[in-house]
């Protein structure tokens, strides 16, 4: 297997995630797209970790890093959805475009 395959897969996933972040109006769907991005990153990490391990047996950095990313993603989704809930409670809508009070 080539390293390339996994990396390109990750890239595709990443770009689809980017598209989803920008194109979706619903806040929850934006968060879903962010999950895609995070997963793409994870694939990248694990692939490189495996490649590294193949060359240097004592090294598990890739997997560890991916675990951390998963944990962080979990935390982020938790807080993010809490925020979305709060916004929904106050505005009765989770249209991201409506949340622009920081506009200049």
């Amino acid at each position, binding site marked *: 297997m080539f390293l390339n395959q996994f990396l390109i897969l990750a890239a595709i996933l990443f770009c689809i995630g980017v598209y989803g972040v920008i194109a979706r109006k619903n806040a929850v769907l934006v968060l879903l*797209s962010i999950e895609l991005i995070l997963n793409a990153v994870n694939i990248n990490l694990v692939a490189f970790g495996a*490649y590294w391990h193949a060359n240097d047996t004592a090294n598990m950095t890739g997997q560890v890093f991916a675990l951390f990313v*998963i944990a962080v993603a979990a935390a*982020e989704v938790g807080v993010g959805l809490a925020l979305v809930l709060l916004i929904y409670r106050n505005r009765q809508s989770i249209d991201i475009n409506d949340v622009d009070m920081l506009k200049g």
Partner: protein
Amino acid sequence: MLAVLVAQNIAFYIIAALIVFGAVRVVTVKNVMHAALWLVLVLAGVAAQYILLAAEFVAIAQVLVYLGAIIVLFLFGVMLTRTKAGIDEELNNSKTMRIGAGVIGVALLALMTYSLWDGVRDTEFGNLGVQRTSEVSDSIFSTFLLPFEVLSVLLLAALIGAVVIARRD
């Protein structure tokens, strides 16, 4: 080795196709619930890919955390925000934004692919070997102890934060 490699390759491509398809459905369906469910497919596929890469612990962690907790969290979020069940036309931004997003995505993909193709074209994995969970835990608790602790604090903060934010008082 070739047979193993061939089987792995085929497995890889099938799973990759599923992932990509699922991802595309995530960002295009007009139903929030369906999007979440398509994400399940993506996440599952990603877990399978991890196994292909001989990272079993991560794959299991992925299944447990993502598929078990995060998706449930998303579903709760969908329910609590009373999004319209069924087809909802108002889930996408305007056409301009979508086209812009598409442009950006394609451009980014092109660039990344080009650079990957240019850079790591012929790199092979070699012998993946066995990556034991004990080695992972050894690594976590020795080399990456500090990040681990910080991560736990982070999770604590996120926990409390989410509770505080979503509290109804």
